[in-house]
């Protein structure tokens, strides 16, 4: 014969470790006098013990490496799309300001000269700028119309406009790395610069 459900409920409360002392007394008293409930209770406890006792599986040894290798490379365009999506108002305002000033296209065409930000320990070979191994370059590095090789450390952001950058495995950049290569990127670059100027205005309304 089945005992009433209340006792079974108390068993579950006990197994969930949520039983209060008074109910625990009631349960224990009942189990002493009722073989059937005692058996049921022991079966529950045994079931839990065998489930808990299953051996712990380990992920394959190369698991982390595989995950890291399959992470999407954060592409500039993806970053831009996300940024635009998250900040539509700022984006619109910046685009407006950028186009209003009208200087973007002309500066893109004018600034074809090789140039680099001024840091003493940057080495320049032809159109290639090198952050030498073991050197720490402080501040943002900006290279226009040239290549940048980073073998040492840059403590700041790196921007390469109309060129390319190469980060050696030993090289390190504490800030963001950005390449600006097409007119569209160029507009984008200006928009972001403008955006950061106007962000303060919008911060309040965004929250």
């Amino acid at each position, binding site marked *: 014969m089945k005992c009433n459900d209340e006792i079974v409920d108390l068993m*579950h409360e006990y*197994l*969930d470790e*949520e039983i209060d002392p008074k109910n625990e007394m009631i349960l224990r008293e009942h189990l002493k006098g009722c073989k059937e409930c005692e058996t*049921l209770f022991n*079966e*529950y406890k*045994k*079931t*839990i013990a*065998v*489930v*808990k*006792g*299953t*051996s*712990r*599986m*380990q*992920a*394959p040894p190369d*698991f*982390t490496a*595989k*995950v*890291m290798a*399959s*992470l*999407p490379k*954060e592409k500039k365009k993806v970053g831009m799309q*996300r940024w635009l999506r998250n900040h539509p108002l700022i984006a619109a305002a910046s685009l407006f300001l950028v186009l209003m000033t009208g200087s973007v296209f002309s500066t893109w065409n004018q600034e074809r000269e090789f140039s680099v930000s001024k840091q003493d320990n940057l080495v320049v070979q032809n159109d290639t700028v090198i952050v030498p191994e073991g050197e720490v370059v402080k501040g943002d590095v900006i290279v226009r119309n040239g290549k940048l090789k980073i073998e040492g450390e840059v403590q700041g952001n790196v921007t390469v406009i109309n060129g390319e950058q190469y980060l050696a495995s030993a090289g390190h950049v504490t800030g*963001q790395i950005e390449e600006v290569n097409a007119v569209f990127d160029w507009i984008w670059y200006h928009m972001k610069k403008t955006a950061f100027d106007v962000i303060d205005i919008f911060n309040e309304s965004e929250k």
Partner: protein
Amino acid sequence: MDALIKKRIKQVIKGDQDAFADIVEIYSNSIYQLGYRMLGNRHEAEDIAQEAFIRAYVNIKSFNQDLKFSTWLFRIATNLCIDRIRKKKPDYYLDAEVSGTDGLTMYSQLSSNAPLPETELESLELQESVQKEILKLPEKYRSVIVLKYIEELSLNEISEILDLPLGTVKTRIHRGREALRQQLRYV
């Protein structure tokens, strides 16, 4: 560890992809384990675990840093498992473990503090019946049982992971426990 995780998450959000490796390393076994117990074979377990980490990476900016990261990660992984179970043909996963090579790999994997061969064999058989019975549970009971007794999470955490009221989680655990008891009481 929570502090380390928090720090790594901040680094990943800033664009430091490498910082994600530590996060994967710390949780890989438990997420893999979840997949194995939910889906019943190593191949799918690895697959689902990988996907869970990739999704976590891609969506990391939407993670609320005031909450527990493991809860969020378990939510992603559990949902992936449940989706996969729902898409499966119902007879496929029942066969997967019984017939296959998985038993052998599990056998070879058993603990290094070598018990007597006979005990080991018995324990292997027991392991297999437990795994088989877990896999027979309908997905809504299976997930709470695995989270509670394999991952050893609290009822509150499980309720957050599954986005279910605490009462529902308890009911499911009780029913899951009852179903398992009926199958496992004589093992």
